[in-house]
């Protein structure tokens, strides 16, 4: 008798667990698919990394780990890299927004919270150094997607790896050989 009770209790617990696990599959309607732009995620990640690197470099400079020339050179390079990335994000963002209206809503929501929070530069205590690179990023994501960024029309694209300028026709960077990533057939921002 106690064995039967045990089996029933265990069976009920197991049933509850199984129902909980398969529940998401039982919902009516076709399975929604995650729309996530891999390229865009990667670019945003890279942009963040570049901004963090600029910040780090500055700190290294202030703590005496870099000579003036090295700092100037590397800082230039990182900034070019960041700007290049930001321009690519601008280019990609409108397309990915068209893919799903929800994305736009999501961006709008985030934009609101981000603007509301007001704190967008990574290290507000030393804004003058980071601002130059950080602000276009915020402009980029906060802008209407269709609008090209300031400077985006004249400035050529840059390699995301080494920051060297790229001709519109390039598929690989002439300087470092890195593939020129573009998720869209759009050749250049000013077209």
């Amino acid at each position, binding site marked *: 008798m*106690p064995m039967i009770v045990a089996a029933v209790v265990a069976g009920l617990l197991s049933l509850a667990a199984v129902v909980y696990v398969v529940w998401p599959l039982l919902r009516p309607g076709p399975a*929604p698919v995650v729309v996530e732009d891999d390229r865009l*995620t990667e670019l945003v*990640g890279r942009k963040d990394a570049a901004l963090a*690197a600029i910040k780090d470099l500055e700190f290294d400079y202030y703590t005496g780990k870099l*000579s003036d020339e090295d700092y100037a050179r590397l800082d230039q390079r990182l900034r070019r890299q960041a700007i290049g990335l930001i321009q690519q994000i601008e280019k990609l963002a409108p397309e990915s927004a068209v893919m799903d209206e929800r994305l736009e809503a999501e961006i709008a929501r985030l934009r609101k919270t981000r603007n509301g929070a007001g704190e967008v530069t990574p290290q507000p205590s030393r804004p003058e150094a980071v601002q130059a690179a950080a602000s276009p990023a915020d402009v980029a994501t906060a802008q209407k997607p269709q609008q090209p960024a300031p400077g985006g029309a004249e400035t050529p694209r840059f390699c995301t*790896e080494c920051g060297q300028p790229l001709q519109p026709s390039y598929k690989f960077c002439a300087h470092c050989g890195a593939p020129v990533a573009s998720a869209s057939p759009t050749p250049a921002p000013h077209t």
Partner: protein
Amino acid sequence: MIFHIGYLILITAAVLAVFGMIAGFWGGRQRNVKLALSSYHAVYAVAGLVSLAAAILWYALLTDRFEVAYVWNHSERALPVFYKFSALWGGQAGSLLFWLLILSGFGAAAAFANRRRHWALMPYVNAVMLGTSLFFAILLIFAANPFRLASFVPQDGQGLNPLLQNYWMVLHPVMLYLGYVGLAVPFAFAVGALLSKRLDNEWVRTVRRWTLIPWMFLSAGILMGSQWAYMELGWGGYWAWDPVENASFLPWLTATAFLHSIVVQEQRGILKVWNVTLIWMTYFLVILGTFTTRSGVLESVHSFARSDVGPFFLVFMVIILFGFLWLLFKRLPLLRDEQAIESYTSREAAFMANNWLFAGIAFATLWGTFFPMFSEILTGDRISVAAPFFNKVNGPLFLLLILLMGAAPLLGWRRTSRQAFRKQFTWPTLIGAATGVAIWLLYDAGYPAIGLAACAFAAATIVQEYVRGVQARRITSGESIPAAMGNLWRRNGRRYGGYLVHLGIVLIATAVIGNEFFQQNTNVTLANGESVTLGRYEIAYTGLEPNRKVNHIEYGARLMIFDQKSGKTLGSILPRRNIYDKTPEQPTSEVGLRMTLLEDVYVVLNGWETGGSTATFTMYVNPLTIWMWIGGLVLVLGTLVASWPHPGRRRSEAAASIAYAVGSAGD
């Protein structure tokens, strides 16, 4: 009856783990939200069922249900409640259940923390965590059922192993498990990144904190184990390079290397293959360590055949080994380094050297640990390598590591100019050299002089980094010194918390050097009232004090400690032997200890005659040992500073999620 329920829900957990794995892998591949959500639910459900099973075993232990074989074998009526609670991880089946409990808990925590993020990665992460859970559930169901019933109801249990009846032994395994098991999470993310082809910095950045926290627990667990060995085993030391210790140390080494090399990937886009390999090695070493300590394979190859769980582990390890290598090989083209190392005097070059050293130490330790097994298989003779092998090989490697630990933070990324080099290295080098010369002149000892010089150099670089960091903040934002210091931790915790961890390691290294080279000891039999001189102490025996406790008798030998020169009384200590009622043939030792910042007086009671008229002791003076435990605290504190979330990071995570849109993902 309730124990049958425990067993049955473990089976349900295993079935749901299989289902969740399929849902995770398939849902990740199809980017199907329903399947992905189902994998999340499976993670939560498995965690819930396993918690329930653990609660049932705890209930059995706390209410003395000796009809459960596990309770019968590992508890007794007279056992204090505290130890009844900890008996859950005192034996094979229970500790495997505890493993699974922590693992499923980590899985649920990782899933919950990332429920709205990393949608490409998370289904795979859930699947890998469930896969590991499945393995342990299978062990519990088929090889080590903690709910197995005895054929009769015994009157009393056989008691917990006396060596485990110690506070450190209650905490130490919990810490170790939290560290050990937690390292499955970064591995799951690595596999998720490989499977989803999302091999940019996303997984590396997410995984940093999920590695740091288990790493902290693992470090604390290892140190607590040392503390237990020091206090309980009574051989005067804290680390013997025995296989069980090495099993916990090996993944620590590779996890430490991983924590450093992911910084390089994040900053410079290099070492991608190395990073996934390192975290895989860490995970493999965790499973290997669990296997070696569970199967008895290292005491003798023959005990492996007798162990129930051995074959299961072997199959699982083969799956991990080949599964991962296959996956890595398939993804190799996507793991191309984005840049090259530009100069040998750069921080990334120093990080590379650090990784080689850690890998070298790990390899030497692995080799030494398994050498007896190989020699037995190949020649039939069991040849053990003992502590001197490990000390000779690993000692110099650790010395280099400490030097590098001092030097690396002073180098810039990419390259360091000569001028900056001079500016950074002058003071620390001078301080290190001065310390070395001073030790050499004072004690005429070469090796400790070199070792302590390296420690002083590393400590000096850390102080210099803090001073310069505070100065830099004062220049750029004009803060006061305490505010600048606080902001270094708050805004740049990764770096300045890391330095604290380094400082902890330097303190631990100092304690090791002190013990290794300056320990004094003596073996002595004293009659009541007699005394002996050791170092700068005079130690007198004043009689035996028996003391009845609930499940054992404590015999303590009172010793008075005097300053040898002035004759001043410094205090008294009571080294003890505990004789347990259930296992009188297995007495445990409690050392008598007088700790000071400079050195410990450490006495073991070996035995006594005729009610304590004479007693035999082993006495040690252990220099600087307390710094090992202080260093451990500093290390934990530093890890907390380094893993504390700070404002900037939250922003970047919000930015990353711009790229998502989930079609009616619901919750």
